[in-house]
């Protein structure tokens, strides 16, 4: 099917949760913005309103008093609101004041050298083969190794955490009730795991994130065990999934776009701009949810308190009113790029500084060592809806012998 057909101007409905849309969302976004700036998605067992134009999405993000992030907006197996994702201002700022400095730009910058070593070690593991499932072997391990190391957690826990993360984000049982059960059970396991990890660190003097949370204060008091767990829950979802999706989309794109790939391979100074363009053009987190907290009207539609609203970030990021006539084209050298891939307003993604560093170093090292690559013949790239991970990404390139140190 054509992804644009997932928007039906006659009924006012649209469905972003189709594999065809996740694989090629731009025609879907375009039809949404042009025909249904407020659309209805009958999914998740309840109706959700979709907002899709750049200025509307940006406005909603800036007004948490109208579009609340309160707990009710999304059930992902958690017992309490995730901190700070599901906390509204002014309470929200108290947590950001504690968490943001632990992964702020000056804090993550010194990780670059170590990160470059990790990326090269991962590339060493497959470069001699001339083929790789870039999802399983590159884009999944990278952010996970970084995350585990920052939290001071053992690398052997990786597989377990990945299963939990996927069970929460994409349980894919085909039945909303069963999905909720899987999420609930996984959530319980995740809480128990981090309860142990936090207990082990009490009284310790480590520099890992969990130990730092133990010794930091919110509003002049220590954080409770529950507050720390609610931060850890979010970190697993944010830290293990979104950089993977962005790298999946980036490598799949460049494997099929030799002209832009050549630009990157020839001149690494454009990588930072290319990262921003990847984030804009592919917007791996297609949408985020909010709950209406005050009656409000948009394009003649009256929202009521309690309505669920989906802010279609990917659609905002390809809106020609903001990005010009070439909004639906990929341009690694695009200059002004006010994309909303990390959201906006007070909830701007708190991992964005770390994510940008990981993406830049990963793309620099990949293209330094593997400047020329394509998607393996006959491979079908399946994108998962919501957060656009590619289930399997088989790439082929000229094999390179890796010198083994004596």
């Amino acid at each position: 099917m054509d992804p644009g057909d997932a928007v039906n101007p006659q009924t006012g409905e649209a469905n972003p949760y189709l594999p065809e849309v996740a694989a090629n969302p731009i025609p879907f976004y375009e039809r949404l913005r042009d025909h249904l700036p407020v659309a209805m998605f009958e999914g998740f067992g309840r109706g959700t309103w979709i907002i899709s134009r750049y200025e509307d999405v940006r406005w909603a993000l800036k007004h948490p008093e109208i579009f609340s992030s309160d707990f009710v907006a999304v059930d992902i197996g958690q017992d309490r609101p995730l901190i700070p994702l599901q906390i509204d201002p002014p309470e929200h700022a108290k947590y950001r004041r504690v968490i943001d400095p632990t992964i702020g730009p000056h804090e993550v910058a010194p990780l670059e050298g170590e990160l470059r070593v990790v990326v090269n070690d991962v590339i060493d593991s497959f470069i001699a083969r001339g083929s790789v499932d870039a999802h399983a072997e590159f884009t999944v391990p990278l952010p996970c190794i970084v995350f585990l190391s920052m939290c001071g957690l053992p690398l052997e826990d990786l597989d377990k955490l990945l299963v939990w993360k996927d069970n929460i984000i994409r349980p894919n049982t085909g039945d909303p009730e069963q999905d909720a059960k899987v999420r609930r059970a996984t959530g319980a396991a995740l809480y128990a795991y981090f309860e142990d990890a936090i207990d082990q660190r009490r009284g310790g003097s480590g520099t890992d994130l969990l130990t730092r949370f133990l010794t930091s204060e919110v509003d002049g008091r220590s954080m409770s065990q529950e507050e720390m767990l609610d931060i850890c829950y979010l970190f697993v979802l944010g830290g293990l999934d979104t950089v993977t999706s962005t790298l999946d989309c980036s490598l799949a794109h460049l494997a099929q776009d030799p002209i832009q790939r050549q630009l990157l391979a020839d001149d690494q100074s454009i990588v930072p701009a290319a990262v921003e363009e990847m984030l804009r053009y592919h917007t791996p987190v297609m949408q985020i949810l909010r709950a209406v907290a005050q009656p409000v009207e948009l394009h003649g539609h009256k929202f009521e308190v309690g309505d669920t609203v989906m802010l279609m970030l990917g659609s905002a990021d390809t809106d020609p009113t903001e990005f010009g006539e070439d909004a639906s084209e990929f341009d690694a050298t695009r200059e002004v790029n006010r994309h909303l891939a990390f959201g906006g307003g007070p909830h701007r993604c708190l991992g964005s500084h770390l994510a940008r560093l990981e993406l830049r170093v990963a793309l620099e090292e990949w293209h330094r060592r593997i400047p020329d690559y394509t998607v393996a013949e006959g491979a079908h790239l399946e994108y998962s809806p919501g957060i656009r991970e590619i289930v399997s990404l088989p790439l082929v390139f000229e094999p390179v012998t890796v010198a083994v140190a004596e």
Partner: protein
Amino acid sequence: MRIHFEPDACVGHGRCYALAPQVFDADDLGHCVVLLSEPPAELADAARLAVASCPEDALTIDE
């Protein structure tokens, strides 16, 4: 050229100090700190790009 910064609008996207690191820096929250509110001519283009790239309109320029 004079740069005006609205701290209440800044949420720490970090575009300004990434694009014009000699004109802007980050505080520990990742929010903008203006280093040079009247940047010299050789930094003017970078400053303009940085200001135009703020998704929250927290920065403006008087030319």
